[in-house]
C-alpha cells in the first residue's frame, strides 16, 4: 500500500521549481500544504463558469453555485463521517471555528465556578479563546500536563482523571500537536470527558487530511480544521458540531442568510448550518475544499498516513544521528505524526531556517504559536520539518545535508 510518488508529485505544480538555484524541498506542511492541480482547477472552473451568490438567487448560476456549495458540505460531511451535512459549518479556518464554540457555547453555558480543561500543548488558537471565554464567565481554565523533559511522554492520563471533575464543562484538546508531533488518543479522551458530562472540542488542524478521521467513531461534540492544511484553499475551514448541540446554540454572528424573519423589533434564526454562516460565505473555498476531499480520497488516506509514518521514522533515525540535536516530542520509534521539531545547542532556529532556505529547503523556525509549551520545555524556539504526501526520502537526505552544513558553518 505505497504511494506512487512520481504521480503524486506531478499533481502539485508548485513543487517543480528551483529555490535559490536548488530544487525546492517543501517541508513546511504543518504551516500549510501545497495544492494539487485538481483543487486549483476546481477553483478556476467555479470562477469561470458558476460564480454567483448562494441561497438567494433564482437564476441558473445561483442555483449551480448553491448546489456546488451544498455539495461541498455533503462531501466534507462524508470525509469526516458526520451523521448529517448540517453538522458541517463552513468557517475561515480552525481559529474561527474554535472561537465560534468558545463564544457561542461559552457564553451560553459557562458560569462562575465552572472549569474549562485543555492541555499544556495547545496551539494558541485552541488556548487563547478558552482563556477569554473562561475570563468572561468567571470560570477557571485548567491544563492537563504534558509528561517528559522533552514532552516525550504525551498527556498525563492519570492527571487527566484527577482533573476531570463534574465541574469540567468543556474539554478542548488537539488531535495532533503541531510542535511535538504527539498524537492524542482522542476517542479515549472523549470517552473520559463524556463520563463527567463535559463537552469535547478537538483541534484537528494537523490531523485532517493526514489519515482517516471519523467524528462518530471519535465521539466528539465539536471538531475544527482548516482547508489549507489538507490541500485545500486558504480562507475556508470547518466546525463540525453534533446536531443536538448545534440546534441549541445561539449564533455568534448575525446578518443576512441566517435569519428566517426580521422585523424592526427582532429576528429569528434558521437552523444549522445557515444559522452560523451569516453573510456571503466563501463559496469558492468550500468548493475547493470539496475537491481536496476528493483528491485525498483518490490517493487514499490510509496510504497517506503510512507514507507520513515511513518518512517520519526515517527522519527521526537520520536527525537523531546529528551531534548536539535535541528533538522534542515522542522518542525515536514511538508513534508520532509526520513532523519533527528540534533544536541545536549553538544555532538558533532562525539561522537554521535561513541557511536551509539557501539550500532550497523550506522549514519553519520559531515558537509555532506555542509559547507556553516552549517555556515549559526551556526553549525559545525550535526548527520544524513537517511532511506530507509528496515528500520523499531523498528530500530528507537534502534536509540532513543542509543541517550538517549549518552545524559546520557555526562550529567555525
Amino acid at each position, binding site marked *: 500500500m505505497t504511494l506512487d510518488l512520481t504521480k503524486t508529485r506531478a499533481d502539485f505544480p508548485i513543487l517543480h521549481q528551483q529555490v535559490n538555484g536548488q530544487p525546492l524541498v517543501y517541508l513546511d506542511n504543518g504551516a500549510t500544504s501545497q495544492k494539487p492541480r485538481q483543487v486549483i482547477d476546481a477553483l478556476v472552473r467555479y470562477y469561470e463558469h458558476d460564480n454567483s451568490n448562494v441561497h438567494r438567487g433564482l437564476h441558473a448560476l445561483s442555483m449551480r453555485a448553491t448546489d456546488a456549495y451544498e455539495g461541498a458540505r455533503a462531501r466534507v460531511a462524508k470525509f469526516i463521517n458526520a451523521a448529517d451535512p448540517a453538522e458541517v459549518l463552513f468557517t475561515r479556518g480552525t481559529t474561527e471555528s474554535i472561537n465560534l464554540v468558545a463564544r457561542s457555547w461559552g457564553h451560553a453555558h459557562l458560569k462562575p465556578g465552572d472549569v474549562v480543561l485543555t492541555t499544556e500543548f495547545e496551539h494558541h488558537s485552541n488556548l487563547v479563546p478558552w482563556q477569554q471565554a473562561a475570563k468572561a464567565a468567571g470560570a477557571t481554565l485548567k491544563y492537563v500536563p504534558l509528561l517528559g523533559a522533552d514532552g516525550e511522554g504525551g498527556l498525563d492520563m492519570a492527571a487527566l482523571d484527577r482533573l476531570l471533575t463534574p465541574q469540567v464543562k468543556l474539554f478542548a484538546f488537539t488531535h495532533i500537536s503541531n510542535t511535538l508531533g504527539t498524537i492524542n488518543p482522542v476517542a479515549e479522551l472523549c470517552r473520559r470527558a463524556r463520563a463527567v458530562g463535559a463537552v469535547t472540542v478537538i483541534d484537528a488542524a494537523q490531523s485532517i487530511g493526514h489519515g482517516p478521521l471519523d467524528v462518530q467513531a471519535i465521539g466528539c461534540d465539536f471538531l475544527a480544521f482548516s482547508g489549507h492544511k489538507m490541500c485545500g484553499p486558504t480562507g475556508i475551514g470547518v466546525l463540525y458540531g453534533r446536531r443536538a448541540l448545534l440546534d441549541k446554540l445561539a449564533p455568534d454572528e448575525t446578518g443576512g442568510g441566517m435569519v428566517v424573519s426580521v422585523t424592526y423589533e427582532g429576528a429569528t434564526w434558521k437552523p444549522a448550518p445557515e444559522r452560523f454562516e451569516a453573510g456571503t460565505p466563501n463559496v469558492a473555498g468550500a468548493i475547493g475544499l470539496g475537491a481536496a476531499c476528493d483528491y485525498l480520497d483518490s490517493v487514499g488516506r490510509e496510504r497517506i498516513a503510512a507514507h507520513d509514518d515511513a518518512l517520519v521514522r526515517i527522519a527521526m533515525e537520520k536527525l537523531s544521528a546529528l551531534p548536539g540535536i535535541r528533538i522534542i516530542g515522542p522518542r525515536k520509534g514511538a508513534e508520532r505524526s509526520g513532523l519533527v521539531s528540534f533544536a541545536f545547542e549553538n544555532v*538558533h532556529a532562525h539561522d537554521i531556517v535561513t541557511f536551509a532556505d*539557501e539550500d532550497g529547503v523550506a522549514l519553519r523556525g520559531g515558537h509555532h504559536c506555542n509559547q507556553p509549551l516552549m517555556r515549559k520545555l526551556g526553549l*525559545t524556539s525550535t526548527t520544524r520539518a513537517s511532511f506530507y504526501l509528496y515528500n520523499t526520502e531523498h528530500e530528507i537526505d537534502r534536509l540532513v545535508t543542509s543541517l550538517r552544513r549549518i552545524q559546520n558553518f557555526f562550529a*567555525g
Partner: protein
Amino acid sequence: MQDLTDLYQSVILDHNRRPRNRGKLPTANRVAHGDNPSCGDQCTVYLRLDGDRIGEISFEGSGCAISQASASLMTLNLKGKTVPEAEALYADVHRLVTTGKVDEDNLSDLAALAGVHQFPARIKCATLGWHAALNAAKGDPITATTETHKD
C-alpha cells in the same frame, strides 16, 4: 538570494559565539526589555547611567545570531556615549541595516551588520537590542516590541 556570508560575516559569528557584556549588570539603574513576538526573540538591556552618559551596559536574551551579535556589538559601541550620542548612532545603524549604506569612520565594527539590509526579515533581529537600550537610556523601562516600533 544574496550570499549568506554577507549576512553572517566573521565579526557576527564571533560575537554570536562569544557575546560581550552578556549577563545582568549589578550596578544598573535602568533596565528595558525588548520582544519580537513573531519569532520569540527577547533581549533585556541593563544600563548604568551616570548623568546623561552610559557608564556601563550589558544584555541578556535569546535569539538568532544576528540579534545576539548586534546586541553584543551595541554594548561595545554605546558604552561611554551620552544619550543623544546613542540616539545618533542608532540612527546610523538603522540606516545601515535598512539600506546597507555605511559611513566606515563612524560605525567601525558595526559595519559588519551591513549585510542585513539584503534580508528584510532580519532587520528586526538586528534592531531588537537597540530599541531596548534606547528605551532604557531614555528612562522608559517599558517593553520594546519591534512589531509596534517602526524599525
